[in-house]
């Protein structure tokens, strides 16, 4: 059973068209949920950590939210430079300290 599921797999937006990416998780005792951005040929770049339901974090056009079952990454008025793969990862109470990743959402923003 997948512990972290991201949707959609791919998303194409027009510049300025806001949308949301979803990360759902099935682990118990969530310790942390992490969002990363990955550009081709690069390592994942850290964006946000969320630790408890109801928490929200913002950075420029991105806003991450967390519930007891899922997290959303909201992208407001995206620009072409926001095109990347967005990865979600979790750690949980009875799991290892390393991150368990979802398969990612490939976002393309067209001018």
């Amino acid at each position, binding site marked *: 059973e997948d512990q972290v599921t991201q949707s959609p797999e791919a998303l194409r937006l027009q510049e300025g068209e806001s949308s949301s990416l979803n990360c759902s998780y099935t682990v118990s005792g969530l310790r942390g949920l992490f969002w*990363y951005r990955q550009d081709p040929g690069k*390592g*994942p770049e*850290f964006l946000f*950590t969320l630790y408890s339901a109801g928490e929200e974090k913002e950075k420029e056009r991105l806003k991450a939210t967390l519930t007891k079952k899922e997290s959303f990454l909201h992208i407001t008025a995206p620009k072409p430079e926001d095109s990347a793969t967005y990865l979600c990862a979790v750690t949980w109470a009875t799991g*290892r*300290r*390393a991150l*368990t*990743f979802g398969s990612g959402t490939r976002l393309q923003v067209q001018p």
Partner: protein
Amino acid sequence: GAGVSQSPSNKVTEKGKDVELRCDPISGHTALYWYRQSLGQGLEFLIYFQGNSAPDKSGLPSDRFSAERTGGSVSTLTIQRTQQEDSAVYLCASSVGGNQPQHFGDGTRLSIL
């Protein structure tokens, strides 16, 4: 400041050869992680070092894989008798420890001919 540094950035080798991949973590980070990223498999955990504790090796796919961390800093991932299925990008990350964000290097792209 300096981020996580990995070398080489690319490595091409023949099947059956041994390879060593190096990771220099961010200064002061006590936790170091190795992951592997391959097409269709996503990012998978390999091994985790935290300070002087015994490493968590539970993600290593076979006994051909090993890693060490010397002096609590630099780490080397060694793959012996490489196979074609070992072709992937090997990523290293470090963190200040605990449940803090991990910061990644740009990886070593390993190709086995």
